[in-house]
């Protein structure tokens, strides 16, 4: 979610709805063995749901998985909830477009924030025994801030779930030719069943299962691709030869100016906007991921979980970024020439063929292709509908690579990995929605005096309702194309002000309830206004990102940065003008006012700080190696 739907250069999913009517042949044809692999996966996740139903009877069990998860399970679930298939395919497509610059979203855009969550913030979340992030705001700032955050979370999660569901169905149609409604129905029924039955425990179990499947299904692509490309050296040589640039292999070298790199970003935006505001906002305050860590069985496990997750997060580019880079040199057209991928908008413009095989809307198609690097001869072939002259989008880089290397059985496993990723993201959204709805909206605002079993029932029902609303959102996006951009923007609009409010609340005793509420509200309104400004006046991007050379990619990071700064100013100014809470009331909530529980000493290999140091060393080394 974080990558593709918030700040990804491949975030141009707005054209995706236009692909619903795609009439070209699917990329892959599944055989019986592949179907069996997929079917077994569905049987397994539903079996897990039924098995765990008996262990999800109390609210603590249903919403917090009994707070019994080990560090490994919480850590893998923490990473897996973010590792959706849109993420996999979107970032593979981004790597195809921009090279390893896309890796920033996995390294600086995740690792420092994950370590900060584990080492610094987790004790406050965990010691306060909150059930959710809005719940923490309630304890720290009071009801109004909690209510704003809870409604924002609930709306965002359910709409995002719908967008994910729709995007998954489109991908299944493009890759496999499956009917859109069939994909939506099957995936949503499966998720509703296993999360509704087993609650968060079931969602976490399946996320760990899905994490293993994603690696088992996707790892072969870079291995076989590297063999065929002649290793890393061969890949580099071929890319420089094809693309006439070595920028594809540098993370930082060409970020001194917006126009010096294909992504159109500046290092300040990457470091402060992505590396701080967006990354910290997502990994430390988004309840979807924080909920997984809150389910850990003790404070040490809760602190260790994000650190374990950070090792796997650093490794994900191997199965995501590398296939995109390999696609640049290995994908071929049927005639043996190099296959060049294009944007979703170009594929959509050239979709549909007339009786003689030529493109229906040739002027729109021609205009769309004029902005690409497709050879003129190939463009003519596309316009005339010549056999084999197909257009594929950047987001199809990973499925195309899978089809290239994976035969029967293995292809089924690869497709299962994609489906598992989709369902993992959807399950994460609905389980978080259920908790926020029950604890932060229903309980404080609608029925304060319900029994524990009543709230569990409300939680189960809210999962069913959440899935139903998600399905509605999916069909809404399908029929009203423009909505998709707005839904995607919800996340980035909300997260920066929330980060400011939580950081000041957690580390500044003086922050007051009114300051938290106003900061959150003003920050969200300001961020939404910036988004609408650029939407209505595209040239305003130069003002938001401070450069006429800035590309849409830069908008997300700079908008987040400005929203964070404004929210921080509001929280400081209003706090200084209002009366603070007595320090005694801040125990367990604020740094300096909390006596953290003393942890038993453990050998260094079980110590979270020691492992965090290892992560820092590897993180620094990777950034230097790929400078």
């Amino acid at each position, binding site marked *: 979610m974080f990558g593709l739907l918030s700040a990804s250069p491949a975030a141009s999913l707005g054209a995706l709805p236009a692909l619903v009517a795609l009439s070209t042949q699917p990329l892959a044809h599944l055989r019986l063995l592949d179907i*069996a692999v997929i079917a077994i996966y569905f049987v*397994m996740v539903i079996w897990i749901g039924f098995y765990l139903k008996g262990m999800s009877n109390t609210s603590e069990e249903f919403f917090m998985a009994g707070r019994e998860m080990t560090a490994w399970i919480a850590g893998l679930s923490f990473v897996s909830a973010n590792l959706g298939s849109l993420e996999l395919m979107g970032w593979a497509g981004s790597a195809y477009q921009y090279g390893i610059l896309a890796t920033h979203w996995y390294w600086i855009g995740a690792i420092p924030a994950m370590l900060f969550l584990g080492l610094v913030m987790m004790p406050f979340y965990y010691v306060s025994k909150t059930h959710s992030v809005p719940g923490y705001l309630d304890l720290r700032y009071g009801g109004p801030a909690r209510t704003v955050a809870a409604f924002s979370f609930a709306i965002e999660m359910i709409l995002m779930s719908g967008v994910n569901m729709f995007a998954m169905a489109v991908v299944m149609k493009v890759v496999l030719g499956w009917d859109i409604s069939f994909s939506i129905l099957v995936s949503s029924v499966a998720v509703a069943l296993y999360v509704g039955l087993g609650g968060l425990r079931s969602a976490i*179990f399946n996320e760990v*299962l899905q994490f*293993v499947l994603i690696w088992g299904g996707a790892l072969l692509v870079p291995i076989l691709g590297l*063999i065929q490309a002649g290793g890393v050296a061969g890949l580099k040589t071929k890319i420089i030869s094809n693309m006439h640039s070595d920028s594809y292999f540098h993370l930082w070298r060409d970020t001194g100016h917006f126009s010096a790199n294909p992504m159109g970003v500046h290092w300040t935006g990457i470091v402060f906007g992505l590396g701080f505001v967006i990354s910290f906002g997502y990994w430390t305050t988004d309840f979807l991921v924080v909920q997984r860590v809150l389910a850990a069985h003790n404070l040490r496990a809760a602190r260790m979980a994000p650190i374990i997750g950070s090792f796997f997060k650093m490794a994900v580019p191997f199965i995501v970024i590398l296939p995109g880079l390999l696609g640049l040199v290995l994908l071929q057209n049927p005639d043996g020439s190099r296959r060049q991928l294009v944007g979703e908008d170009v594929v959509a413009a050239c979709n549909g063929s007339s009786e003689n095989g030529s493109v229906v809307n040739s002027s729109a198609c021609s205009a769309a292709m004029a902005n690409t690097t497709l050879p003129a001869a190939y463009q003519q072939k596309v316009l005339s509908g010549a056999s084999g002259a197909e257009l594929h989008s950047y987001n199809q880089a990973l499925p195309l690579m899978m*089809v290239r290397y994976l*035969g029967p059985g293995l292809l089924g496993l690869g497709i299962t990995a994609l489906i598992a990723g989709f369902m993992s993201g959807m399950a994460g959204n609905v389980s978080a929605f259920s908790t926020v709805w029950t604890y932060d909206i229903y309980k404080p605002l609608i029925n304060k005096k319900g029994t524990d079993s009543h709230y569990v029932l409300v939680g189960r029902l809210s999962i069913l309702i959440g899935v139903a609303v998600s399905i509605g959102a999916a069909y809404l996006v399908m029929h009203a194309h423009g909505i998709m951009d707005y839904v995607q923007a919800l996340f980035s609009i909300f997260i920066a002000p929330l980060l400011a409010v939580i950081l000041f609340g957690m580390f500044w005793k003086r922050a007051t309830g009114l300051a938290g509420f106003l900061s959150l509200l003003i920050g969200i309104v300001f961020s939404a206004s910036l988004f609408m400004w650029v939407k209505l006046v595209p040239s305003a991007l130069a003002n938001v990102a401070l450069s006429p050379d800035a590309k849409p990619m830069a908008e997300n990071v700079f908008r987040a940065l400005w929203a964070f700064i404004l929210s921080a100013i509001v929280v400081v100014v209003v706090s200084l003008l209002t009366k603070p809470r007595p320090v005694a009331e801040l125990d367990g909530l604020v740094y300096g006012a909390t006596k953290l529980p003393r942890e038993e000493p453990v050998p260094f290999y079980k110590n979270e700080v020691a492992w965090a140091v290892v992560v820092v060393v590897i993180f620094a080394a990777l950034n230097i190696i790929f400078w």
Partner: protein
Amino acid sequence: MHGSRIPIWFFIGVLLLVYGLMIFGYGVYEWQTANYPPLVQLTNLHTPVWWGGVLALLGLLYVVKFRPTRAHK
């Protein structure tokens, strides 16, 4: 995992074992009959055989190590 009779690792082991055996079995059939899918690259590496084998062995390891009778409460 604490509090459950069957750890998640056992479920993972079962799934990997089943998938591994299916893919390995198909790989052996493919190798014996030389009936390779026409558009798939690097079939000479017999990927389904070794990858299916790896998955099956990993799955077997997890099934044995985390089988329910040995699972911790």
